[in-house]
C-alpha cells in the first residue's frame, strides 16, 4: 500500500467527510429564572386561577384590549403573545401543559442544571441532553457550526457535543489575521488544505466556505423580510443571528439562546409589567424567527423551556414564588400545533417534597424525547439521550 493510502486508511477509515447542509434546526430557548407560564397560557375559565391570583390574574377574553387572547373555551394566551397567535392558528405552535422535573430543591441553579442535563433528580449526568442528541443522531459527522449557543459561554445543555461554539454574533466567525487581509489568508489556507497533507481537504474546504459565507452575510447585511422585526435587544439580536445562520446554510443543527428575567417574586406586574415585558420580548422574537426562516427551505423547530413554573397563588408582594410544573412551547412546521396538549385536570397543586406548584403531568424528558424523535428524527433518543425514561407521547409530533 502507498504511504498515502495507508495514511488515509488509518486516519479516516472510509468515512466521507463531505456533508450536505442539515435542513433541520432545533432552537432551544431557555427562560432563565423560572417562568410564570400560567400567566402566558392561561386557563381563564377556571375559577381557581382567579381566586389564587386576585391581583395578577389576567383578564378573561373580550374584557378589553389587555385581556387574554382566546384560543379555545378553556385557554387564552397572554395579550402580548399576540405575535404568536397566527402561528398557533396555522397549527405551527403547540403548548404542553403540566411539564416539569422532580427536583425538590426549588433552586434555580440545581433545577437549571438538571433540566440542561436531561436527568432525574439525584441522577448523575453524561453531559447535556442536546450534547447527547448531537452525538447520537444519525447522519454525517457534525460540521464546524453544527451547534452554537448565543452568548459568552457554552451552556450545560451542549456539553459533550462533538463540536459546539459559543458565539456572541457572526463577527466571531472570522479569520483574524494580525495585519493582512483575511480573504488572502483564507485563500492560502484553502490551498494548503487541498494539498495531500494530512488529508484534511474536505474539512478545510468546509471551514473556508463557512468563513466566506458568514463573511458575505456580514458584509451585505440582509435585513429580515418585509414586516419582520426582531426585538431591539440581546435576545432579538441573538435570534436574528440564528436566523441568518440558518438561511446561510452553514449546517446549523442546534442553537441555544437564553432569555432571563423570569424570577418574578416581587411586583410581577400586569400585562406590561415585569413579566409582561418578557412575554412580549419572547413572543415578538419567536414570531420574527419563524417568519424570517419560513421560506428558507429549512425546517426550524423551537422549544421553549424553563427550570420550573411558579406557585399558583400570588405572594404578599404581588409576585409569584418558585413553583413546579410549567407550560412548554413548541413551534415549527413539524409540530402538530394549534392545540394545548397535556394531561390537564385543572389548576391543581402538586404536593411533593419541595415547593408546591402546578401539578406535573409530564416528565420534561418525555416531551423533549418526543420532539427529538418525532420532529428532529433522532431514532436513538430512548437509548442515548434519555435512557431509562418512559416515553409518554402527548401528541406533539
Amino acid at each position: 500500500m502507498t504511504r498515502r493510502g495507508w495514511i488515509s486508511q488509518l486516519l479516516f477509515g472510509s468515512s466521507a467527510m463531505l456533508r450536505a447542509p442539515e435542513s433541520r434546526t432545533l432552537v432551544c430557548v431557555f427562560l432563565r429564572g423560572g417562568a410564570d407560564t400560567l400567566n402566558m397560557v392561561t386557563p381563564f375559565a377556571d375559577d381557581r386561577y382567579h381566586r389564587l391570583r386576585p391581583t395578577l390574574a389576567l383578564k378573561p377574553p373580550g374584557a378589553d384590549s389587555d385581556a387574554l387572547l382566546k384560543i379555545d373555551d378553556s385557554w387564552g394566551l397572554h395579550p402580548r403573545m399576540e405575535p404568536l397567535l397566527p402561528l398557533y392558528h396555522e397549527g405551527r405552535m403547540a403548548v404542553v401543559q403540566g411539564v416539569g422535573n422532580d427536583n425538590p430543591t426549588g433552586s434555580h441553579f440545581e433545577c437549571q442544571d438538571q433540566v440542561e442535563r436531561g436527568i432525574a433528580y439525584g441522577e448523575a449526568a453524561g453531559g447535556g441532553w442536546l450534547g447527547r442528541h448531537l452525538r447520537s443522531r444519525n447522519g454525517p459527522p457534525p460540521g464546524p457550526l453544527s451547534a452554537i449557543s448565543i452568548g459568552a459561554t457554552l451552556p450545560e445543555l451542549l456539553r459533550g457535543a462533538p463540536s459546539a461554539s459559543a458565539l456572541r454574533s457572526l463577527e466571531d466567525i472570522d479569520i483574524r489575521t494580525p495585519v493582512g487581509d483575511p480573504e488572502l489568508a483564507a485563500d492560502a489556507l484553502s490551498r494548503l488544505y487541498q494539498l495531500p497533507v494530512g488529508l484534511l481537504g474536505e474539512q478545510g474546504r468546509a471551514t473556508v466556505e463557512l468563513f466566506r459565507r458568514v463573511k458575505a452575510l456580514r458584509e451585505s447585511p440582509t435585513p429580515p423580510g418585509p414586516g419582520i422585526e426582531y426585538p431591539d435587544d440581546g435576545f432579538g439580536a441573538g435570534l436574528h443571528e440564528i436566523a441568518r445562520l440558518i438561511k446561510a446554510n452553514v449546517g446549523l443543527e442546534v442553537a441555544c439562546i437564553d432569555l432571563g428575567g423570569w424570577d418574578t417574586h416581587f411586583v410581577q406586574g400586569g400585562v406590561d409589567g415585569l413579566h409582561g415585558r418578557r412575554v412580549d420580548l419572547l413572543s415578538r422574537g419567536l414570531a420574527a424567527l419563524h417568519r424570517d426562516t419560513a421560506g428558507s427551505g429549512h425546517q426550524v423547530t423551537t422549544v421553549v423551556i424553563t427550570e420550573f413554573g411558579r406557585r399558583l397563588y400570588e405572594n404578599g408582594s404581588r409576585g409569584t414564588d418558585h413553583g413546579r410544573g410549567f407550560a412548554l412551547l413548541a413551534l415549527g412546521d413539524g409540530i402538530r400545533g394549534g392545540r394545548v396538549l397535556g394531561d390537564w385536570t385543572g389548576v391543581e397543586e402538586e404536593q411533593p417534597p419541595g415547593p408546591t406548584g402546578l401539578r406535573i403531568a409530564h416528565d420534561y424528558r418525555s416531551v423533549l424525547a418526543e420532539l427529538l424523535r418525532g420532529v428532529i428524527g433522532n431514532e436513538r433518543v430512548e437509548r442515548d439521550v434519555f435512557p431509562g425514561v418512559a416515553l409518554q407521547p402527548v401528541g406533539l409530533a
Partner: protein
Amino acid sequence: MAEPAHAPSTRRRRVLQGLAGGAGALCLTGCERAISGLGRMAGQSLPEQPSLAATGEDFDPAYHLLNRAAFGPWPGQVDDVRQRGWESWIDWQLKPDAIEDRACDLRARRFESLALAPGNAFELKREVIREELIRHTLLRAVYSRRQLFEVMVGFWTDHLNIDLEKGDCIYLKPHDDREVIRKHALGRFRDLIRASVTSPAMLMYLDGNENRVGDEHGDVPNENYARELLELHTLGVDGGYTQDDVMAAARCLTGWHFSMQGWRRGRVRFEPRWHDSNEQVVLGTTIPAGLGPMAVDRLVDIVCSHPATARHISWKLARRFVAPEPPERLIDRLAAEFTRTDGDIRSVLRVLLLSSEFRLSAGMRFRRPFEFIVASLRAMAADTHAHAPLIEYLTRMGQGPFQHPTPDGYPDEAGPWMGGLLWRWNFALALVSGGVPDVRVDPAGLTRALRRSASGDDTQTDTDMDTGPTEELDLFFRHFTGRPPTDGEREALRDYRAAARLGEGRALEELMGLVIASPGFQVC
C-alpha cells in the same frame, strides 16, 4: 512517582516568598513575572541556535519521536534526541524521577487546591479547583521535561476518565490526579487499576459509592462501575465477559464507600455491613467467600491479568502513539510484553516506541486540540501561566480538560475534532501576534534563531545568507512540522506573501501563523 507530591513543602514556600517579596499569596502577577524570569534562565526560552529538522523529504525522526512521546519539540530539543540517541532518549524519559524539572515545578506547583486531602477540598469554590487543576495540567504539558510521563498522564486521564462536573467529582479529582494517575502513570497497570477502584473520585463518578447490599439496600448492587471496569478500563467491550461477570464483579466491590459528611468526609473505608461476602466467580476464577476488603484485590488481579486486558491496553496505546487503526502485529507484540512483564507500563511503552511501526507512522495522527495547543506553545517557546483565555481556546475546540462527560474519555479518532479547524486557525494567528492574553512569544527572535541555525547547518547545501521569503518558509516548515514544505505548500504561501504585500516583521508573523494553521501541523 518521585515527582514530589504537590503538598506545599517548606522549600517551595521559601522559594515563593523569596520571589514574591514575602507577599506569600498566590496568583500575583509579580510572582508570575518572577517565575517566568527564572524559567527563562532555566531553559524555558529560545536557544541561540535551535537545530532544525533535516532537509530530506521525509519527517525528521527526532521530530517524530518528540511529537508523539512528548507534546512536540521545544526549540532545540531535537538536539537532545540526536545527542542521546533514539533509544537512550526513550530510556531517559521512562525514568522521570531522575529528570530534573524544577523550572516546571516553579510554574506548576503553586496551586494550593491540588495539594489538599479530598475531604478538605470541599472548603474551596468549584471554580478555584477547576481552574487550578486545568492550569496545572496545561503547564506541566508545556514545560515539564518529563514529557513522556506527561503524555502518559494524559493517556490515563482519558482511560480512567472522570468528569469534574458530575456530582461532587470536582472536589475529589485533584486527589485522583495525584494518587492514581500521576502516581502510577509509568508504573504497573495492576497498581493503577487497584488505586482507581477505591479512588474517591472514581467511587463518586461511577456510583461505586452507591454499590451496596444489605438490609436497607436490598440485594441489588449498582453495577455501573463494575461494567466500566470490564468494558473500558480492562478487558474491553469485546473482551469476552458476560453479564454474570459484571454482576459478580459488582458484588465483590460492594461496601467500598467514602463519606460526604462529618470528620470522615472524603475518606474511603470498607463497610462490611454493605458488602456481599459470598463466593463470586469472575471470568471463571473463584473469589472465595469472606475475604471482605481483600476481595477487591483478587478481583483486580483477575481482570488485570486477563489476556483480553493485555490486548485492550496494547491496542489503546498503539492507537494513541501510532495510528488510529494500528497494525495487528504490533498489538500482538505489545500484548505479549504486557503479559510477560505482568503489566509493566514502561516495558510495553519501550517496545512500542522502538517498533518499526512507530517509526514509520509520522504524520498519521491527528492532533487533538490539547495536543495542538501545547505543541504550538512549545514550538514558539511561549511564556505563559495558562490563564483563562488560553483555557477558553481549548474549551471552544471541544477539549476542556477533565470535562469529557462520559467514562470513555476524549476520543482518539480524528472525526469528532474536525469541526474545530476555524478555532485552530485563529489560535495560530493570535498566538504568533501576541494576541492570546498571558501568552508571550517572540516570533522575530525565533526567526532570527532559525536563520542562525540554517547558516550554521552542515546539512544545508544552500548556504546563501540571503533571507528571501522562500528560505523563511522552509525554515518555518522545518521548525514546526519537522520537514521542508512540499512544493504545493511553498507555492501557496509564497503567493500569499506576494499578494499580501506586508512589511517584513508582521509578514513573517503571519506566515508563521499560517504554518501552524496549515494541515501539516494538525497532524503529527
